[in-house]
C-alpha cells in the first residue's frame, strides 16, 4: 500500500496545497471589490481540460492501487514470474511512436495546419491500434506457452494489468475516432484542436503508465 500512499499523497497534497493557497489569505466576511471582479473560473484553461485532469487523477488512483496490490501479492510464496514475450518491446515502440506522432499532430493543430493534422492523426491512431493488436498477439503467445491466467498470480496480474491499460487505450481511441472523423469532414477547427490537445495529454499519460507497468513486469 506504500505505493498507493505515495501516489495519492502527491495527488492529495497537490489538491489541498492548491486549495489552501486559494484560501489562506482571504477574509471572506470582508467584502472586497477585488473579489467581486473575479470570474468564477479557477483555472485558466478549458473546462474539458480540467475534467481530463480530474479523470487522470482517478486513473492514477486505479493504476496505483493495482501496482500496490501487485507488489504485495508478489511476496507470496507461489509467485512464479512469467517470461514476457519479446513482442512487448515492439508494442512499446508502437506506443512511444504513437505518442510522438500525436504530439507532433498537436503542434500542427495548434498552428492551425490542418493538412498536417490529417495524416498525423491517422498515423497516431494506426500506431495505437497496432499496439493493441500486438498486446492481443502477446496474450496469445503466452497462452500458447502455457501461461494460463488462473495458474499463478504473476500470470493473472499480467493479463489484468494489460487488459485494464488496453481498456483505457480503447477509451482514448473512441475520442480519437471522433476527432479524426471531424478532421476529415472539415468540422470546426477550434473544438477539434481542443480534442487533439487533450488526447495528446491522455496518450502521454497512458504511455507513462505503460512504461511503469512494463518496467514493473520486466523487473519482477
Amino acid at each position: 500500500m506504500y505505493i498507493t500512499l505515495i501516489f495519492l499523497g502527491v495527488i492529495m497534497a497537490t489538491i489541498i496545497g492548491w486549495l489552501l493557497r486559494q484560501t489562506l489569505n482571504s477574509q471572506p466576511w470582508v467584502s472586497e471589490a477585488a473579489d467581486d471582479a473575479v470570474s468564477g473560473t479557477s483555472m485558466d484553461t478549458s473546462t474539458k481540460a480540467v475534467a481530463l485532469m480530474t479523470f487522470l487523477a482517478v486513473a492514477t488512483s486505479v493504476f496505483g492501487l493495482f501496482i500496490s496490490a501487485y507488489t504485495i501479492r508478489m511476496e507470496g510464496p507461489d509467485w512464479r514470474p512469467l517470461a514476457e514475450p519479446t513482442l512487448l518491446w515492439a508494442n512499446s515502440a508502437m506506443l512511444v511512436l504513437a505518442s510522438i506522432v500525436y504530439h507532433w499532430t498537436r503542434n500542427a493543430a495548434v498552428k492551425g495546419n490542418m493538412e498536417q493534422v490529417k495524416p498525423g492523426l491517422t498515423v497516431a491512431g494506426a500506431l495505437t491500434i497496432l499496439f493493441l493488436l500486438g498486446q492481443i498477439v502477446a496474450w496469445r503467445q503466452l497462452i500458447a506457452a502455457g501461461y494460463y491466467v488462473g495458474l499463478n498470480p504473476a500470470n493473472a496480474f499480467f493479463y489484468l494489468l494489460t487488459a485494464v491499460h488496453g481498456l483505457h487505450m480503447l477509451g482514448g481511441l473512441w475520442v480519437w475516432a471522433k476527432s479524426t472523423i471531424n478532421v476529415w469532414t472539415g468540422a470546426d477547427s477550434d473544438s477539434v484542436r481542443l480534442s487533439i490537445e487533450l488526447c495528446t495529454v491522455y496518450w502521454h499519460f497512458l504511455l507513462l503508465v505503460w512504461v511503469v507497468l512494463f518496467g514493473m513486469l520486466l523487473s519482477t
Partner: protein
Amino acid sequence: MAYVSIADRDHEIEHHDPQTFITKYVYSQDHKVIAIQYGGLAILIGLVGMILSSIFRLQLGFPDTFAFINPENYLQFVSTHGMIMVIYLLTALFLGGFGNYLIPLQLGSRDMVFPFMNMLSVWVYALSVLILIASFFVPGGATGAGWTLYPPQAISPGTPGVDMGIILMLVSLAVFIVAFTMGGLNYVTTVLQARCRGMTLMRMPLSVWGIFMATILGLLAFPALLVSAIMMLLDKTIGTSFFMPAMMAAGEVTDYGGGSPVLFQHLFWFFGHPEVYIVALPAFGIVSDLLSVHARKNIFGYRMMVWAILAIGGLSFIVWAHHMYVSGMNPYFGFFFATTTLIIAVPTALKVYNWVLTLWQGNIHLRTPMLFAIGFIFTFTHGGLTGLFLGNVTIDLPLSDTYFVVAHFHMVMGVSPVLVVFGAIYHWYPKMTGRMYNETLGKWHFWLTFLGTYSLYLPMHYIGFLGVPRRYFAMGNTDFMPDSAITLNTSMTISALIIAATQSIFLYNIIVSLKKGKPAGGNPWKATSLEWMTPDTPPKHGNWGHELPVVHRWAYDYAVPGAAEDYTPQTVPASEVPVGRDHGVDH
C-alpha cells in the same frame, strides 16, 4: 493561482431546453431534475434497506419467534442493508442528490458543465440499483458476506449467495463506481470552472465545500473498491488467487493458493474509510448552512471550517487500517494508525465547537430543519466520541466486532447524516417545490426519529461492552450475557420499528405538501446564499433567467451591524446595503 479575467462562460454550457414530459422529467439534462431523480431513487432504495433492517431486528429482539427469518436470509439482509445504506443511499443522496441540486444553484451556474454526462450518471446509477435488487432473485440469493464482502468467505461455500449473488453485488458496485465517476467529474469541474462572477472559493457556502471535498475523496477512493471488486470477481469466476489462500472449502482442499485475504481488507478499507467522510463531509457542510440560516448568524470560524474539511479529507486517506487492528496485519501498524486516527479527531472536534459557537449569541428559530441540525450535533458528538474508543488501538481489542462498533458507526454515519438529510430536505423543500412542508408533521417526524434512534443506539453500545458480537443470528445461552440483555434487545427492536414507522410521516408530508403546501415564495427563510435568489421558484431550466448573478460577499452575512435586514444576500454590493437602526449589541 490568480483568477481568470474573462467573465461569462455561458457559451461553454450546452443547453437542451426540454420539450416534452419525457425530456423534462425522464431524459432530463437539468441538474435539478437529475438531483431529484438521484435523491428519489436513493430514498426508495433506502426504504428497502430500512425494511430489511426492521426484519433482522425482529430476529434480534424476539429470537426464534418469526418463522420467515432464518440464518441464511438474516445474513443476506444484514449485508444488503449495510451496502444499500452506505453506498446506494447515502453516497448517492449526498453527492448525486444534494451535490447535483446545490452546486450549480449555490454557485450561480446555469447547470453542471457536462449535462449529458450528468444524465448518464443517474441512469447508470439506476442500473446499479437494479443489479443489486436482482441479486435477491437469482439462485442462491443475495450475498450474505456482510457489507465488507471479505474473502475468502464471500466467495466460498458456507456463505449465502456465493454464486450469482456475490457476482451481481460486485458488478453492481463496479457499475455504481462508473456512475459516481461520471457525476464526480462534473461536480469537481463545475465547482472549479463554472462559478458566477465574484464567487471566490472562500465565498462558497460550506455545503459546496463539503460536497466538493467529498467528491474528490470519492474519485480517489472508489478506485480501491473497483480494483478489489475486479480482483475478487476474477478469483470467483476464473480461479485466480489474488485474495484466496490455500484452504479448505466444504471439507475439500481447494485449488486456490498463496492469495492474501488481508490484501483485500487493505484495499477495501482504503476505500472504506474515505467513504465515511464521503458521507460525513457533505453532512458537515449542509448542517453548517442550516445552523447559520436558522440561527440568523454567520457560521462561526468559516475559515477554520474550510480548513478542517481539507484536513479531514487529507487525513482520511491515512487512517484506513484502524478498521483492521485485529485483522492479523502487522501489529506494529497499530501504532501508526491509532495516532493518525486520533489526530483526525482534532479538526472534527473543531467543527463541532464551531457549530455550537454559531448558536451562541444567535437568534435561534427552532423550525424543523434547525431541529434536525441541532439533533445532528448531539448524535454526531456522541458518535464521534465513541470513535475515539475504537480508534485507540488498545480499546479496539475488546470492542472490535461487537455491537459497540455497530452502535458507533450507526450513530456517526447512519443517524447523524440521515438527520442532516431530513433537515436539508425540509430546508430546501420550498425551493425545490415552491411550497412549504407541514411544520407540525415535520416536528413530529424529528422528535420520533431523534429520540427513537437514541433509544435504539445508546443501549446498543452497552450490549457491545458486554461482548456480544455483531452479525450473530442468535446468541443462545451464554454465561456472560444476562437474560436482561435480551429484554434490552427487545426494547431496541421496538425503537427500530417505531423509527421505521415514523418515516411514513415524512413521506406523507413531502408528498401531500406538493399539492397542499402553502406557497413558499422565493426565499422563505430569508437566507443569503444564491439558490434563494433565483428569479423563479422552483428554478427553471438554466436557473437564472437572462443574466447570471454576480456575488459581492460571502454566504453568511446575517445580522450585519448597521444593515436594515438581518440578512444581506450574496448578490448585494457593499455600497447598496440598506442601512437601518444600529444593532451592535443585542444581548
